[in-house]
């Protein structure tokens, strides 16, 4: 007995999940729901990575996208009030043009997508050793650059969101002295 039929079924479920949830993120009006659906997209994507045999990437995907980015976006949602403005300013006028543009790119790309073919890879263990070796040898320098980028982003985010009150209190205290 073979279980070959399992993989296509799982893949079909995951792709439906990815595409449906992704579309819902764009179409749905409730932002919290959109954020949660986005997390769901990410989870399905992690499933696809597992299907591809990239468990480490899948784990990172969940760790970073679901555990960190979604939570961050939820924070953003909760700190801002999304007004239900029925009318649109001029922004919405671009929707038809945008639709035409996106369709013009998407249709050929989607048609071409199926033309990719690759031989079945030889069976092998997880992707962890290979990934680690690549990151710390050939890509060590980009890796360091990326760490600097993260640091810069962290500092930038803190500076951007820091309120001036702490500073003000500080000067006030100094003035009092």
């Amino acid at each position: 007995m073979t279980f070959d039929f399992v993989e296509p079924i799982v893949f079909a479920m995951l792709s439906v999940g990815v595409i449906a949830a992704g579309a819902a993120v764009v179409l749905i009006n409730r932002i919290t729901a959109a954020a949660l659906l986005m997390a769901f997209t990410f989870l399905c994507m992690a499933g696809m990575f597992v299907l591809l045999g990239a468990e480490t990437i899948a784990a990172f995907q969940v760790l970073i996208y679901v555990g960190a980015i979604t939570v961050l976006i939820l924070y953003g949602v909760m700190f801002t009030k999304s007004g239900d403005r029925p009318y649109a300013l001029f922004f919405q006028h671009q929707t038809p043009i945008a639709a035409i543009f996106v369709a013009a790119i998407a249709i050929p790309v989607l048609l071409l997508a199926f033309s990719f073919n690759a031989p079945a890879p030889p069976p092998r263990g997880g992707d962890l050793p290979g990934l680690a070796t690549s990151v710390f040898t050939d890509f060590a320098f980009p890796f360091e650059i990326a760490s600097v980028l993260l640091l810069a982003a962290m500092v930038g985010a803190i500076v951007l969101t820091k309120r001036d009150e702490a500073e003000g209190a500080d000067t006030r205290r100094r003035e009092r002295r």
Partner: protein
Amino acid sequence: MIPLGAYIFVSAVLFFIGCAGVLVRRNAVVILMCVELMLNAANLAFVAFSRRYGAIDERGSVFVVFVFVIAAAEVAVGLGIVLSAYRNRPVVDVDEIHAMKG
């Protein structure tokens, strides 16, 4: 064995969904989410190509790791910008924020 084309197709669909979302939605936070979707679509393509073509190492997947870094940095800074803009004027709709006009 799922053909490579299927993964690429899913990746492309998700990418254009995100792309359309960026162009159509008004809420800045939602636009950030759509950008994340696009990045994720790219990740899928990277991993699929890497796993199916990479014979020795995981060079394609390495780029996914870097995309993770970029995505995290982008969300952090993007939300920081949205929040600081929101603090000046409580709007998150990008069509009302047009102080950058030339």
